[in-house]
């Protein structure tokens, strides 16, 4: 059996998105800045896609800025809010310990440039307390940036409450919604979100394309300077085929949202139930306040990479923590933030589902994972110590 269960890493493009994109590559090759018919045709297609994306988010079309992906959108939103804040003497930024590196590294860089950054803790459930946000806001706070849904443990943050607090305190609020959009309902206006980042390839759209939504009136600085594209705020010839592909995928995802959420979360719950049978295992992140497709487990006494490789041999494609950090030796900063000790954090498994997965696949995973965990524990000196009682079980 072949099972792709790494949909938080990236998704397979939907046929609808591939078709839209291929059609566009063949038929709409113009540069929308060009005056001639081919260019103006491209401008029309671009405008249509912008309107579609805006509608899917509950935004106006002129609040949509196309970027090269979630990372760029995060970088631009945060840097822009920081620099604008600095102009008014506000140099304090608030975020959490469980953000994506696109956010954390941008904040780290700003810190080196003289900004002060408060990274809020999250609870053992992987959720930030809005009261903590409220307490952290100061006179000189320029930005609160808190992710909509975590990419590793899938926890949904209390965005509505946080956004309301920010609105009351008149602090700009940005949310990295890369993992959320297309998977849970998002409405930027209704939810009082000032800025939001998303990325096409997380909801069966193309890679290399994303969106930064910026509420009217919220100032935006360029990350990329040059031509006057995107109302002068993001230079570079517009990637129309990808924009069109993303818009198609987003439209599809939003249209099927309720149905998919029900279907996927049922599989998620069954998978959680099944894996919980493994002794000394635990689910990471709140069991209910999480993305419909996210299952994240720790298995004591084993290491994640070897688990992944053996699962791959069985046709199960999963991940351990964030894919982006696979070049790193450190365990996930998210798992550490929810209080797991290093040695347990090393033994994590992330299975992220989409509507293409089937209940049969879930049963197959439930059958295979315990066997592999058992094999790895059997050859693990750490497990030996735990079993012999030389070390105490943590989970």
């Amino acid at each position, binding site marked *: 059996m072949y099972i792709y269960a790494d949909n938080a890493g990236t998704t397979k493009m939907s046929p609808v998105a591939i078709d839209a994109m291929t059609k566009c590559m063949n038929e709409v090759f113009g540069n929308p800045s060009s005056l001639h018919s081919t260019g103006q045709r491209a401008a029309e297609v671009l405008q249509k896609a912008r309107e579609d994306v805006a509608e899917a988010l509950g935004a106006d079309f002129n609040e949509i800025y196309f970027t090269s992906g979630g990372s760029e959108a995060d970088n631009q939103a945060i840097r822009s809010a920081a620099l604008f804040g600095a102009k008014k003497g506000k140099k304090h930024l608030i975020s959490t310990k469980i953000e994506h590196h696109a956010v954390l590294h941008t904040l780290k860089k700003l810190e080196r440039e003289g900004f002060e950054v408060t990274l809020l803790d999250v609870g053992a459930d992987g959720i930030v307390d809005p009261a903590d946000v409220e307490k952290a806001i100061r006179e000189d706070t320029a930005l609160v940036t808190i992710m909509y849904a975590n990419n590793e443990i899938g926890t949904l943050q209390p965005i509505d409450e946080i956004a309301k607090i920010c609105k009351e305190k008149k602090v700009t609020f940005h949310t990295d919604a890369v993992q959320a959009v297309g998977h849970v309902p998002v409405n930027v206006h209704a939810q009082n979100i000032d800025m939001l980042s998303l990325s096409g390839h997380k909801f069966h759209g193309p890679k290399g394309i994303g969106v930064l939504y910026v509420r009217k009136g919220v100032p935006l600085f360029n990350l990329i300077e040059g031509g006057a594209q995107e109302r002068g705020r993001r230079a570079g010839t517009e990637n129309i085929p990808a924009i069109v592909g993303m818009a198609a995928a987003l439209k599809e995802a939003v249209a099927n949202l309720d149905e998919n959420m029900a279907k996927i979360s049922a599989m998620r719950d069954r998978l959680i139930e099944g894996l919980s049978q493994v002794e000394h295992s635990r689910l990471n992140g709140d069991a209910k306040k999480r993305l419909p497709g996210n299952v994240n487990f720790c298995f004591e006494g084993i290491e994640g*990479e*070897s688990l992944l490789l053996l699962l791959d041999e069985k046709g199960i494609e999963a991940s351990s923590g964030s894919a982006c950090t696979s070049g790193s*030796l450190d365990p996930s900063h998210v798992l550490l933030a929810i209080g797991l000790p*290093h040695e347990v954090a*090393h033994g994590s498994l992330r299975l992220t589902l989409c509507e293409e997965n089937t209940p049969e696949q879930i049963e197959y995973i439930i059958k295979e994972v315990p066997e592999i965990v058992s094999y790895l524990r059997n*050859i*693990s*000196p750490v497990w030996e110590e735990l079993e012999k009682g030389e070390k105490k079980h943590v989970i």
Partner: protein
Amino acid sequence: MLYSEKVMDHFRNPRNLGKMDDADGIGEVGNAKCGDIMKMYIKVKDGIIEDVKFNTFGCGSAIASSSMATEMIKGKSIDDALELSNKAVVEALDGLPTHKIHCSVLAEEAVKAAVKDYYDKNGIEYDKEKFAPDDCPTCGE
């Protein structure tokens, strides 16, 4: 591919995997915090490593490195085993990704630690300098 075919082969079918009840020397290196622990068991007769077993908590390359190391010292003299370098392990595995080189270092040290334990248990004198301290080469703990 992240790993060479050789690495994958040793990861999938580790040689000399297991524990040994009557080991003459046992070495354990690394620590769980940084994600890799290797435990190596040797059986020695007339200065020859007659048998070797290992258990590993760690990534694919850690398991493959231990497996390869055991294969490289099995049937060799202790002196030869002490000559085993992490570089030799990496070469025998047809290379490791840069950020996984530390696994081969761990394998080299596991062998040394097992021999040291054998020396200690049998009251054999040895040059302490030659043996790395018992901490993890990666995180230094």
